């Protein structure tokens, strides 16, 4: 039976020849993830049911990344619980302090993710790993506890929406803009319960870091997973990182897609998502003068080394506008080090930026850059809901790193061509 890539991965992991959308399956999990916010509840649920040991200590990854370095006593308690559990269960992968970065950045970076895997994480942006041709999705803490106990998860096989990106990107247009445009078209629930499969020449031409941005934000359209078939770009990226044998799967040409969508990127401009919805997306040229108090560059959406170098290319030799706080957070210690070695951090510092340690930072209003009442920020992150980065009356505009950098210099939402 012809199947999509998502269906093939799920069939293989549930011991079936084929699966169809709507089937309830129990799938074997290759990697399970939790962090300092979702982990402690998962751990409690895990022990509450009388389970003693995790299903496989090599297949569970715990990362302290949300409220670290610990922002207060209760955050410290949560990380402590994570650390204790990692010790109790003798887990191979527990990352904290100088080893830790944003979970969705460090898992691929450390080679823990491979094409064809099923990865379940207690974080909604677990869908990021679909950029490498894996099936990955976010769940809550209890579901994750069940995975830690059994190594399996029940799933309803999602129908697939295929988005075909054609044409050639303009100079300041990134994977971020492709996905923002897609979310704008689909709406916040347009891919409700579906797999979002990104395909087409414009995606094949995207470097890996921009593919991560695209898979990362699949959840913002309500999707279960976002996925791109692993190709040479993906395999080259994995070389030297992952030692797992990649399982390269492709959608059959006659696979059933619930919907097919084509987006031509020839004329696509950088996109801005207006608060309070990642789906309120407008082209940069349609944005009136919006002055800013803060610009944030980082997160699991745009915290890769190339994201930082893109921003630095714009900021080189320039200063942030008076009254604008620029906050830059590298996604991992490796990225931080590389950004120092490549002179990127110096460019940011010269521009007047504050550099934070690798963590989720202000993305979810945790710490390191909370907005006050009435303040406005441009952010390279993934959500701009009410109160997302601070006060309920603050505003977050989502953009790509080029636009974020140019906006920091001009003190208003603007593209690099205005510099």
């Amino acid at each position, binding site marked *: 039976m012809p199947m999509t890539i998502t269906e093939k991965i799920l069939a293989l992991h549930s011991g079936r020849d084929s699966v169809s959308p709507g089937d*309830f399956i129990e799938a074997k999990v290759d990697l399970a993830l939790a962090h300092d*916010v*979702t982990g*402690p*509840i998962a751990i*409690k*649920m895990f022990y*509450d*049911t*009388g*389970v003693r040991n995790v299903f496989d200590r090599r297949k569970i990854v715990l990362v302290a990344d*949300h*409220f670290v370095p610990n*922002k*207060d006593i*209760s*955050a410290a308690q*949560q990380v402590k619980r994570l650390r204790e559990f990692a010790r109790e269960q003798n887990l191979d992968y527990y990352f904290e302090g100088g080893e830790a970065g944003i979970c969705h950045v460090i898992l691929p970076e450390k080679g823990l993710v491979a094409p064809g895997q099923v990865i379940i*994480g*207690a*974080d*909604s942006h*677990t869908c990021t790993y679909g950029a490498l041709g894996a099936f990955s999705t*976010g*769940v*809550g*803490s*209890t*579901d994750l*506890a*069940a995975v830690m*106990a*059994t190594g399996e998860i*029940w799933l*309803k096989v999602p129908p697939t929406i295929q988005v075909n990106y054609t044409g050639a990107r303009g100079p300041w247009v990134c994977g971020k803009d492709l996905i923002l445009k897609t979310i704008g078209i689909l709406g*916040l*629930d347009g891919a*409700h*319960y579906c797999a979002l499969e990104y395909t087409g020449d414009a995606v094949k031409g995207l470097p890996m870091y921009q593919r991560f941005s695209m898979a990362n934000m699949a*959840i913002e359209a*309500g999707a*279960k997973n976002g996925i791109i078939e692993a190709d040479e770009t993906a395999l080259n990226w994995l070389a030297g990182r992952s030692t797992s044998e990649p399982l390269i799967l492709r959608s059959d040409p006659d696979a059933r897609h619930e919907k097919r969508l084509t987006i031509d990127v020839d004329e696509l401009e950088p996109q801005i998502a207006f608060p309070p*919805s990642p789906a309120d997306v407008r082209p940069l040229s349609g944005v009136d003068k919006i002055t800013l108090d803060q610009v944030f560059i980082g997160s699991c959406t745009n915290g890769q080394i190339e994201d930082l170098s893109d921003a630095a290319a714009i900021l080189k030799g320039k200063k942030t506008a008076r009254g604008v706080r620029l906050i830059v957070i590298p996604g991992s210690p490796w990225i931080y080090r590389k950004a120092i070695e490549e002179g990127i951090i110096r460019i940011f510092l010269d521009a007047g930026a504050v550099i934070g340690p690798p963590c989720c930072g202000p993305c*979810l*209003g*945790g710490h390191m850059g*909370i907005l006050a009442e009435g303040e406005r920020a441009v952010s390279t992150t993934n*959500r701009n*809901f*009410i*109160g*997302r980065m*601070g006060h*309920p009356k603050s505003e977050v505009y989502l953009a790509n790193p080029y636009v974020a950098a140019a906006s920091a210099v001009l003190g208003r939402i603007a593209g690099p061509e205005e510099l």
Partner: protein
Amino acid sequence: MKYKGRIWKFGDNIDTDAIIPARYLSTSDPEILAAHCMEDADPGFAKKIRKGDIIVAGENFGCGSSREHAPIAIKAAGISCVIAGSFARIFYRNAFNMGLPIFESGDLQALVSDGQRVEVDSDEGTIRVVNSTADPVRIQPVPPFMQELIRAGGLMKYISKKET
């Protein structure tokens, strides 16, 4: 099961940041989370509601983050059940896992207003507006697999039963 309570109406796309803002996520204490339930959608909500009240919302309720703190906050605040046009995928799973009753109905929103009382009969699959002669609204049936989970007493009981 029957759930009877005063309703609080919300629109489409009520996200988990609105249900429980991340600034309170350095704890998973239900009491603390309950005190901030729906804070960024309706400030003071937790103080206004009475035990047993019902949230009625539009499409895609609970979109955004995977935080289980969201259904925990709603349940601990005393809300007896949530009725929405649809639920975001992760929230849907979390609610079942947390034992927060949720029901899908696309028709109720337009028929009721804030403060009215409704009665949900999950066995019958109906929602009635109290003191109204109008026909009851149908609830979308729960998939058989989910019913099995509920019968087992939730996910963790389901898997421990399977393991033994």
